[in-house]
């Protein structure tokens, strides 16, 4: 775990919805909660392809990517997203997921590189705290 106190700059988070479901309320609630926790949230909204997510993550140099998915296509889409991120050299970004993800899918997603899965009913503070504690530091000192 990184020392939370050493961070002097805002955590930058990309919130994106991969795939074809149109339910963005959870993503918006999350974006709002992270904003209120002092983070800079880049919100790209619905229908994001793996390529779009990777491009946004590179251009915005985010520390964290939050993927919200309610279509059930996570096992199909997440490997593609990780392939794009790795191809772009983004291997230190913290990736978290939220939405309707069955518990038996959590381990395969973690094996892929998802750091945490926040299912329905997860308190906002849990997600906020996890991101605060695990977001990578970018240095530059």
């Amino acid at each position, binding site marked *: 775990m990184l020392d939370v106190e050493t961070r002097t700059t805002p955590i930058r988070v990309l919130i994106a919805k991969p795939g074809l479901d149109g339910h963005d309320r959870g993503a918006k609630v999350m974006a709002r909660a992270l904003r209120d926790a002092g983070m800079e949230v880049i919100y790209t909204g619905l229908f994001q392809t793996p390529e779009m997510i990777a491009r946004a993550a590179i*251009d915005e140099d985010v520390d964290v990517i939050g993927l919200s998915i309610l279509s059930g296509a996570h096992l199909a889409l997440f490997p593609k997203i990780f392939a794009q991120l790795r191809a772009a050299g983004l291997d230190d970004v913290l990736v978290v997921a939220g939405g309707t993800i069955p518990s038996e899918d959590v381990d395969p997603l973690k094996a892929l590189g998802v750091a945490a899965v926040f299912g329905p009913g997860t308190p906002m503070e849990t997600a906020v705290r996890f991101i605060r504690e695990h977001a990578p530091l970018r240095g530059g000192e």
Partner: protein
Amino acid sequence: MTDASVDQLVERFRSGNRAALSRILSHVENDKPAGLRALAALYRETGNAYVVGVTGPPGAGKSTLTNALIRAYRARGTTVGVLAVDPSSSLTGGATLGDRIRMLENFDDDGVYIRSMATRGEMGGLSTAVGAATHLLDAFGFDVIVIETVGVGQDEVDIAELADSTLLLQVPGLGDSIQTIKAGVLEIADILVVNKRDISGADDLVRDLRNMLRLGERRTWTPPIIETLALKGENISGLIGAIEKHAEHLSETGELSQRRERRARQEVLRLARRWLSSRLADILDEPDVSAMLQSLVCREIDPTRVAAEVARRAAREQARAN
């Protein structure tokens, strides 16, 4: 971060690596030594981009217009870098950066780079790092840089210091003709854009703006009024034509170099002020100055004397540093 690893990052930047550009931009935005070192190395490579500012009230269509400009420029083979600024919360420091959502269609085009920036406490419609970020996009080789300000009210005019051409978006329904003769953002516009020209009141707005321009004294450049419907890409070619005409005007009259000189001056002043004000705050914490502050509170000395002492210390320190 070691100097060598910063230099390596700069080399990757020079070879066209977007991730390197993004990381250097973060270091600059975070005011890290690595950002300053990279910027110093790359500054000689700047000066080739044309900078377009897009400003206007919230919801006027700045992001949508920026997207339409990207599309039109790309159709001509012109590369575009975008800096889109949204406000930071004054309460928590957090921000929702939502401009990018209007600009997603060019995600697979290497000739387009879009970066969202939060104001991080800066007033004036921009963030402190926008100037330096502009240099980076310039050095990276983008032909045109579009800077989109936060939604402005009446008085956020910093964009005019950074942009070669400033576009001010107006939309119908925000007030009567008196609004058009007030000082502030209207004065800094090089091009007036009446967006959402399909909604009622657009004709009245164009008329009011035209009358406003007629009331003023004649200048060498009268801002044209361009009516657009950015969402449908209507009359974006007309807008680009107006930007090109303005660019020609600037170079023919020598105003471009004047503007750039003014910009350099402002940038140095801004950086020096920032450096000084952080130093001054430190000096206030020095023990004997703290003691003077106590005497001030007890009305034994006056504020001018303390301020003079603080300034004297800053100057002496600076002289020693040179």
